[in-house]
């Protein structure tokens, strides 16, 4: 199918990047296909929308909006024309950390690989030493987190990092850095029993790593 239509989540806005040269009819088909594939992901979503990468007339824009509305169940709050609307309105309506776009990575991140996303990231697999995960939102690792994870990169101090086996070299949430001074990062047979489902979050500018229990969750929620 190619990348004639690309979705990008950025700062609470869904940007649809369109191929500038292919015939409009073909573009519409690609848009339908891509939307069908993302149906589950976008379901119930409330967002601002922006079309980019191609000069389109008002009629064409209306056609594309029509397709979006008919194919997926999202609530388009308004259509942006690209001028940065970094107003409070958007931020109040869509908070990445609670409702943002999420990238799902299936498989292990190996040493030397970097995964960056302007939203939340879920890794189904391990994050091996020497790899880096960077998200504007939250990071969830269903597996072992050994590498480096940086959540809340664009100044989002409410972001959290969860891992089934939390044993990273370094964690960063917003600007707060945590370095893991314990050794034996790789001795998993010793680690797995001790650490299970941990969450890292900021409280009063301190990075806390805790077991993911009801008590911890209460602590996070209460400001």
């Amino acid at each position, binding site marked *: 199918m190619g990348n004639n239509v690309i979705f990008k989540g950025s700062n609470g806005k869904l940007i649809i990047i369109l191929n500038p040269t292919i015939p409009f009819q073909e573009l519409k088909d690609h848009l339908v296909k891509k939307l069908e594939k993302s149906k589950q992901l976008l379901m119930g979503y409330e967002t601002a929308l922006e079309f980019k990468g191609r000069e389109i007339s008002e009629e064409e824009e209306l056609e594309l909006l029509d397709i979006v509305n008919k194919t997926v169940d999202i609530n388009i709050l308004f259509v942006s024309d690209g001028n940065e609307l970094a107003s409070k309105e958007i931020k109040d309506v869509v908070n990445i950390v609670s409702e943002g776009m999420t990238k799902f990575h299936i498989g292990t991140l*190996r040493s030397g690989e970097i995964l960056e996303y302007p939203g939340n990231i879920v890794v189904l697999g391990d994050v*091996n030493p020497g790899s880096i995960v960077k998200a504007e939102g939250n990071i969830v690792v269903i597996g072992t987190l050994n590498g480096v994870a940086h959540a809340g990169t664009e100044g989002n101090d409410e972001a959290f990092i969860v891992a089934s086996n939390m044993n990273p070299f370094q964690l960063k949430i917003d600007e707060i850095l945590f370095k893991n001074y314990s050794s034996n990062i*790789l*001795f998993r047979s*010793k680690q797995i029993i001790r650490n299970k489902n941990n969450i890292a979050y900021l409280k009063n500018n301190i990075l806390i790593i805790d077991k993911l229990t009801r008590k911890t969750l209460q602590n996070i929620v209460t400001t």
Partner: protein
Amino acid sequence: MGKVYVITSGKGGVGKTTTTANLGVGLAKKGSSVVLMDADIGLRNLDVILGLENRIVYNSMDVMMGTCRLKQALIKDKRYDKLFLLPASQTNDKMDVSPEMMTKLVAELKEKFDYVLIDCPAGIEQGFKNAIVGADEALIITTPEISSIRDADRVIGLLAASEMGEIKLIVNRIKMKLVNEGNMLHMDDIVDILGLDIVGVIPDDEEIVISTNKGEPVSVKAMSPSGKAYMNIAGRISGEDIPFLNIDEKISLASKFKNFFSR
């Protein structure tokens, strides 16, 4: 049509060349025709391990440049009729070879032999890229050391991104005494981190040093622990179902006695 394996690791000195030689001997002993190709141009070692260094007239560079025919460069092993070595050039370097040249040569070898084993150089630069380009499958060699595992992980990531087929793992130089003390990573830890199927575990063995200097790979006599391990790997590659040597057993028996008397 034969099968092409590349034996690689990222880290240097973990046993790629030793494994290539011993696997080659093992497969030849089982009746297959094997060619061992040294892809470490400029720093060749495969010929030394096999004890064939004084027989080299032509090398793979000569074949690729058209200076000689493939048959003239292939050296038959002194012990096994079906085992051949295609040595690397010692006077060129890795930048003199392109992936296209390698692909052509490997394709030619594939037609003539049951198995083509490519001894990959250390690193992830041009030498590595050339060595992996013609291979069907990869064997990753790692020792139970963190540095080796880190490099192996990197290499596996690169191989997965290229069009490599199956990638399997061989853990080399394991010392069960250290593992049981908790001072060395267990095979299971390594498999867990690297996420690959294991095809062999080779214990650390002094015989390897002796065999290298003699020019006779351990799997020729296959009496030492490493020799037996290599024969088992050759068997598994050939499709035999061989259980793993339980290197644990000897030590766990001793520890049973220790606990009894310490009460």
